[in-house]
């Protein structure tokens, strides 16, 4: 069983950093709004970070074998296609995850 103090520390650290990142910028928001570079960064960074997060999280899915990799690729295609077609985030996520779980379970 995981050490509860380790878990409490993990939650406390995550919460503290997240809140700091959300709250601290308001202290300097006046300067931030004036800096053109910061404004341009705020428009370009989110997309790139999201794409790197997709790659990172795919790496954590267990794509060790060819069949697992194929299942993940198929689920990704379902999610992308649904999002492009219907633009319903809940549907795309639910359907992609359902395909992943169903196919992985059938692989045994």
């Amino acid at each position, binding site marked *: *069983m*995981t050490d509860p103090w*380790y*878990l409490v520390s*993990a*939650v406390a*650290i*995550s*919460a503290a*950093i*997240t*809140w700091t*990142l*959300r*709250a601290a*910028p*308001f202290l300097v928001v006046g300067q*931030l*709004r004036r800096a*053109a*570079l910061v*404004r*341009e*960064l*705020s428009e*370009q*960074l*989110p*997309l*790139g*970070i*999201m*794409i*790197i*997060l*997709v*790659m*990172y*999280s795919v790496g*954590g*899915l267990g794509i060790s074998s060819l069949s697992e990799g194929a*299942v*993940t690729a198929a*689920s*990704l295609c379902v*999610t*992308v296609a649904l*999002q492009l077609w219907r*633009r*319903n*985030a*809940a549907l*795309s*996520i639910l359907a*992609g*995850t359902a395909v*992943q*779980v169903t196919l*992985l*379970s059938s692989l045994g």
Partner: protein
Amino acid sequence: MPPEPPATAPLTLPTGVPLAAETTGSPFRDAVVDARGAGLAMLPIGLAFGVLVTQSGLDWWWATVFASVVYAGSLEFLLVGLVAVAAPLSQIAVTALLVNSRHVFYALSFPLHEVRGTPARVYSTFALTDEAYAITAGAAPRRLGTARIIWIQVILHVLWVAGATAGALAGAALPVQLPGVGFALTALFTVLSIEAFRARHDIPTPVLAIVCGAVAMLLTPDNMLLVGTSLFAAATIARLLLRRRRGGSSS
């Protein structure tokens, strides 16, 4: 009937969502209309997160703790994976910093200046999620007021915690392991990428990100997230500076 924001729009990061033009006179009822689409879109993700928590061997109530205290969806998913392998706390801190660094930019357009009172302002910054930002940032120049903003955030928070808790209880009750539930996180990032791309149709940014991610994956698979995002941020800054020098003061 006031127009309802589309269910997916709150997930688009850089743009705001048009809010209902009419108000009912009750900040709570207005907030329900504002938050409905995003809140319902978050439910299946919360459920998947809860299932992941109990299937990783944690007690179900850790889902409730993660969801209410950390309250940053993508980080919570990553956190389950990290604590499952007993990752060092330093690695958890770096991951939190990287994954949530995008929130730094939310201060540029979130209407915190409309929220009065220290407790309300503390909660409002704590609960400044992607969804809360997306719903409120598009409201200017109209004013929402303290009560409506806080109610929007409370409704989103409650729905997220409820979904995570329900998923955790369901996951604990399931007689079998469900492999692949963690894909919900990949799907979430994929949807966010597509919507962020739709907002700007900027081709060099995704290409640069994929190259940086691939280079980091080859060089240091264990630190892929840190190295990949740092490379990408540095490359983007260099690109912006270069463009400015070449194009003068146009941007």
